[in-house]
């Protein structure tokens, strides 16, 4: 398992995480069903507006799934930022991970590593976290 993602999307996610700092930012990348390809970036609102928690607004969540259905797409990547900690799934990330087929991407813009950033990807299935390699293309 690995994640392939374009430089443009990776940059956009890091940019969003800086723009929404100190709150966590979140979003998805969609792709055609069954392709596993991360092709359409869709930033989402963090309805929790929190530096330590993120949650898609329930209404946005339904609209997202309807839109994906209409376009024959699926959610390939679910991402969010950690603003002060490592880009590794927290206990709550693991507890609420509800998409066994998705790549869970975490980015970190914590100060200790600035100006560097972290961009890492995981599978989270039944409470088990498996990190996977990320290939940034283009």
């Amino acid at each position, binding site marked *: 398992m690995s994640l392939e993602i374009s430089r443009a999307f990776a940059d956009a996610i890091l940019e969003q995480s800086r723009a929404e700092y100190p709150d966590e930012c979140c979003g998805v990348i969609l792709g055609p069903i069954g392709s596993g390809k991360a092709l359409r970036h869709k930033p989402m609102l963090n309805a929790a507006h929190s530096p330590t928690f993120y*949650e898609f607004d*329930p209404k946005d969540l339904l609209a997202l799934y309807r839109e994906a259905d209409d376009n024959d797409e699926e959610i390939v990547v679910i991402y*969010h930022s950690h603003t002060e900690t490592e880009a590794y*799934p927290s206990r709550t990330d693991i507890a*609420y991970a*509800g998409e066994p087929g998705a790549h869970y991407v975490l980015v970190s813009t914590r100060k200790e590593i600035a100006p560097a950033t972290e961009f890492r990807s995981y599978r989270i299935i039944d409470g088990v976290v498996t990190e996977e390699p990320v290939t940034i293309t283009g």
Partner: protein
Amino acid sequence: MSIEIRIPTILRPYTKDQKSVEAEGATLSAVITDLDANYAGLGERLLENGALRRFINVYVNDEDVRFLGGLDAQIKDGDSITILPAVAGG
């Protein structure tokens, strides 16, 4: 009376991988009881201490059931119920 229930990927192991199933009931609570009778274990994934789990979203047609009375939400023939796990974390 028949209600369509759309099941998210993570709960499909309970429905033999079916994306949507049918159930009956005049309230959401009754629908969940009926679902659990046919798909054992599903009820527990939706409820905790007799209430809807905080990080499970349930919609009747396009409306979040939290705005329709939660488990007491009235359900009528032909309604479509969608279950989606929250996308959330810390």
